[in-house]
């Protein structure tokens, strides 16, 4: 996937036919706070876009707006050219957008199998196949509350996969995990792209993790996009270096 594909979308114009997701000049205000300031980005089919930035830069807010948890104050979110801004999460889940959470939110009193049975079934894979895919095979009847933090993240991912997302938003999957667990999860994400043709936006602080999964990155700072391009170019971009290292 060419690094240039994640570029700022022309504001107000229809996205190119290849774009699965286009975020067009989205601003989100929380009272006087401008959490997102005219953020635009585009993700092509089968592409994995890394979303990086310091704490408070607006990464999770972007995910929340795309996934319908928050309505944008202005601007639009387009899925295959259709405006889906502010639609309820359950409608977006049924239209092919789903997400995971930085702190996983499985249903604690339900088993892993029941956690998946709750969900709208849009995937061509069975629940058992999805649990196997994320590495939870054999733990179907465990209560979610009895799973380890790493397994709860896998369950969160599995529940999103059951709905058959074309666009998967992954919010800091790697936080708090060991190197081995990170590598396993990166492998799972790569399989989702290679075998299911999934498109992803991955919010992550860990550059090593992004190197394994992302085709390109968009860097946010104080709610605004300051860079879009390849990961290695981002690491040598003066504006990005200034934000992360200072000076």
């Amino acid at each position: 996937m060419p690094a240039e594909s994640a570029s700022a979308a022309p504001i107000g114009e229809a996205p190119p036919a290849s774009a699965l997701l286009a975020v067009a000049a989205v601003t989100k205000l929380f009272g006087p706070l401008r959490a997102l300031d005219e953020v635009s980005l585009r993700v092509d089919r089968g592409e994995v876009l890394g979303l990086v930035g310091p704490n408070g830069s607006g990464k999770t807010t972007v995910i929340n707006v795309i996934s319908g948890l928050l309505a944008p104050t202005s601007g639009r979110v387009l899925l295959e050219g259709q405006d889906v801004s502010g639609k309820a999460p359950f409608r977006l889940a049924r239209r092919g957008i789903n997400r995971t959470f930085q702190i996983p939110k499985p249903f604690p009193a339900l088993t892993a199998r029941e956690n998946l049975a709750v969900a709208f079934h849009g995937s061509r894979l069975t629940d058992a196949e999805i649990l196997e895919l994320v590495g939870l095979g054999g733990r179907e009847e465990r209560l979610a509350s009895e799973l380890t933090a790493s397994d709860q993240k896998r369950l969160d991912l599995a529940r999103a996969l059951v709905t058959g997302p074309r666009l998967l938003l992954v919010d800091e999957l790697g936080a708090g995990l060991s190197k081995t667990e990170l590598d396993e999860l990166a492998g799972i994400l790569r399989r989702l792209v290679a075998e299911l043709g999934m498109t992803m936006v991955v919010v992550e602080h860990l550059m090593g993790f992004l190197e394994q999964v992302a085709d390109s990155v968009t860097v946010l700072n104080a709610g605004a996009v300051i860079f879009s391009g390849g990961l290695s170019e981002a690491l040598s971009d003066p504006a990005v270096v200034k934000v992360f290292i200072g000076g």
Partner: protein
Amino acid sequence: MPEGVAGASGQRATRAQTWRRRGADVAAVLVPTVLFALARTVDSNLLLLVTIMVYVVLAQGVNVIYGFTGYLPFGYVGFFGAGAYGTYIAVAHLGAGAVEATVLGGVCAVLVAIVLIPLLRLRGAYFAIASLAAALALSSLVSNPSLQSVTNGPYGADLSQVFSSGGSYWTAVVIVAFAMLVVVVLRRSRLGLQLRAVRADQVSASYAGVNVVAARTGAWLLSALLAGLAGGVYAWAISTFYPTAVFDTTISLFAIVFALFGGVGTVLGPVVGAVVLYYVYNAIGVNDPQYFQLIFGVVIVVIALFLPGGLAAVLLGARRRLATRGADAG
């Protein structure tokens, strides 16, 4: 072990589990129904038996709305009163038979629940207080003298022309069976699973593709239907009543405490809670209400402090411990 053999034994185990579950479901519906049907042979006080069945149905209604969604309806009596007055209006003004009128009482409660759907936007104490206010408003509306031509206002409703102690008793048995069926089906259904998910985390449930508003509304209407049917058959059984009798907030409180005492989220917990506590109430509450209020208060405190899952949680916990001990010993 060859794969085929393992697969066959696994399938047999799954099939056995499925049959065991179905058997438990059928028993959960049939056992209380049959016991109530036979109860008249040991206790000839049919009004007492109908009242207990009414509380069983109300406790199951609370189970549906609180056990599955987390909404605690202090104004639940509003649906009960709507059911009672819906039955009265159907008999007095539409000339309906008592059974049809009881069903219409249930429908009337559902209509009230539809009007009150916006209350579901509230949570916690706000919802509890708003539902109580709605029930009081409905009570005031029904007892308004200017509605005398419809509800007979504050002067009470008279259903003596259709009075039948046996008819109301058997109808109550059928309504108990229906309430048990509703809870069993809900517990096993995808809607029940979705409601439990919504109760745990509505954001996660929404991302799982669950229409949170629709799921909650479904539970709300179902619980209103149960209360309306209970109100209808109670009105039929007592024959004459005033608005204060069927909109008494104590009815809400009893139903909630009975359900919590037995264990919400379970099938049989509210039945056990209603039968045990109502018999206690009947034994001492009628003649010495102050003692019952004391016991009732203690029960509420004990539930809140030590038994948040009710009697059912205690029994299920003991069973789990025994199973674990058995597995360890094995």
